């Protein structure tokens, strides 16, 4: 195995959250002991519902947020503290793409200017040649020079996201963190952007953290997938494998909630209760109040991520006693 490009261990992040106007702030653990590794050129999918902490984990991986506990190593070196020169230099090597492209773009500037901006900021290349590089970047994401002259509001949602991707690629980063990059797009446009990301990733040898709630898109784009629930990774494995035979009951419910058109083949597993609330984390396994197979132990004991089959890790007491394959076979 090659040395990972980014390695994060035991990432923990706690926020103070006020629940009412008059109540005292409570400490909310958004991310709780997350360990991740992404090899150069590899795509890791990070799946979870709202409140799972997947976006916070992504920001910590990029060094945009500092973990309260745990550490991030980028290319073998510790993540420099935010604000300093080494940190700014690292920004050029690790970029982010968000869900809302309109919010990520400056609506007063033409697209080409914004794609060029990172080159100017990081002083990359001969200024005279930057115009050419911008055209090259726009071309790589399927936008014309004419698109470059337009303003964000003159482009469609898909084109805007392409522009954001072009800007993120300007500095030839090694790592791209995409946070729900296609969630706001219509299905047909979503496919265009997903294909584009796959092509760019392969062509440029980018490492990518792809954060999404959409299992289908994550499976399409990722080689490995990690599933988060209430700030913890509950399962991790090879994408195809994991979705075909989920080990954790939560992954299983998520997969069954993503129905396949063309048949009502799979039975839908309907979980009880509301989406997880980080401010009121249940004891033991955080998933136990909604888990269809929970037992007494799950209420008290926090399950740790343990190997369960080739390339697979699951944090579940039930899976620990019998490997994934057995559990599936019995069901």
């Amino acid at each position, binding site marked *: 195995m090659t040395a990972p490009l980014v390695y994060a261990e035991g990432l923990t992040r706690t926020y103070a959250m006020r629940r009412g106007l008059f109540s005292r702030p409570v400490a909310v653990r958004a991310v709780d002991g997350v360990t991740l590794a992404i090899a150069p050129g590899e795509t890791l999918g990070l799946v979870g519902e709202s409140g799972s902490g997947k976006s916070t984990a992504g920001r910590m991986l990029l060094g945009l947020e500092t973990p309260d506990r745990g550490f991030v190593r980028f290319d073998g070196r510790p993540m420099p503290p935010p604000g300093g020169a080494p940190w700014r230099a690292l920004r050029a090597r690790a970029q982010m793409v968000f869900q809302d492209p309109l919010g990520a773009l400056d609506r007063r500037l033409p697209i080409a200017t914004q794609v060029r901006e990172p080159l100017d900021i990081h002083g990359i290349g001969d200024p005279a040649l930057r115009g050419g590089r911008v055209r090259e970047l726009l071309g790589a994401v399927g936008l014309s020079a004419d698109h470059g002259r337009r303003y964000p509001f003159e482009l469609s949602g898909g084109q805007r996201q392409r522009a954001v991707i072009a800007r993120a690629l300007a500095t030839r980063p090694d790592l791209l963190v995409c946070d729900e990059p296609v969630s706001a797009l219509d299905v047909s446009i979503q496919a265009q952007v*997903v294909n584009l990301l796959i092509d760019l990733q392969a062509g440029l040898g980018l490492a990518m953290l792809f954060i999404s709630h959409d299992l289908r898109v994550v499976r399409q784009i990722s080689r490995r997938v990690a599933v988060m629930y209430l700030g913890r990774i509950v399962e991790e494995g090879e994408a195809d494998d994991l979705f075909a035979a989920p080990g954790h009951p939560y992954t299983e419910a*998520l997969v069954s909630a993503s129905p396949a058109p063309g048949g009502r083949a799979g039975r839908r597993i309907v979980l009880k209760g509301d*989406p997880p609330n980080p401010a009121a984390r249940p004891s033991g396994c955080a998933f136990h109040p909604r888990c269809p197979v929970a037992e007494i132990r799950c209420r008290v004991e926090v399950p740790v991520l343990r190997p369960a089959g080739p390339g697979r890790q699951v944090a579940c007491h039930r899976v620990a006693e019998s490997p994934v394959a057995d559990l599936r076979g019995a069901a």
Partner: protein
Amino acid sequence: MSGLDLARDAAPLVAIRDLAVRFNGVPALRGVDLHVARGEAVGLVGESGSGKSVTWLAALGLLPGSAAISGSVTLEGTQLLGAPAEILDRTRGGRVAMIFQDPASALNPVLTIGRQIGEALALHRGLSGRENAAEARRLLELVGIPDAGRRLSAYPHEFSGGQNQRVMIAMALAGGPDLLVADEPTTALDATIQSQILNLIGEIRRETGMALVLISHDLGVVAETCDRIAVMYAGRIVEEAPADQLFLAPRHPYTRGLIGALPPIEGARRRLVAIPGTVPDPRAMPPGCAFAPRCTQAHAACDRIAPALEIIGPGRRVACLAETAGRGSAPTEVAAE
């Protein structure tokens, strides 16, 4: 045997004919024909701006006054378009109920849940006082809100998104409707909560026999829930078919495109077949088929002739020259029209 045939034979519950809507002269809906039979579940699929929501907002008179609406919408023979306010008010919430995408903002923030459900009960069932409260509580229990009695006096902001959608469903059930129109009811919700809501709607339908129109951009959600599916594009229905057939053998290139664009959740990964280009600007609609500029199978006639939605088999309709020309009339004839 299919739902569509039944819908055609028996008088439909709701019949929409040639429904068109313009906002300030810009077309949003360009002639929609759709029938819903009693007890049937119809899915309406399409991307944003395709007109799937506008169809039902127009049908129920819920569009702003600036919308120019033409065509016909009948509920068991009664015309709803341009109907007097009394008829519309009795129909809405009484015979046809509607729930919306973002349940948190669809509920009035300054009124208690009990009052908002009670209002529908008073309007459509004539219940007041203790009876009203008891029925509101029963409905809340029915949709699975724990501790219903106490929660009646709570406000929407005190509920989670999924619970608010349950409250919306309770409110929709208050009038005992024959049809529930659910407009992207789970889009704003997490996957596991989406399953809960779809399951709840399914259970209620099994118990009450209520018909359902499920409006969604999500093919998977619609496929799982509905008997029959209509696909909309740029203000028109382009294909209609029983759910299983639509996915097994889509006939319209746009439907094929939508299915091809959807990443598979199992089996071998394949490159997604993205539909090139973008949806046409409603202010500058192509003269022929609205999908022609993005269609890989378009030929010259497609740029000139807007295809009609034609029957191509039992329960199946499609609006595509390439699909319909070969069947009934020769392509030359179509082109000469």
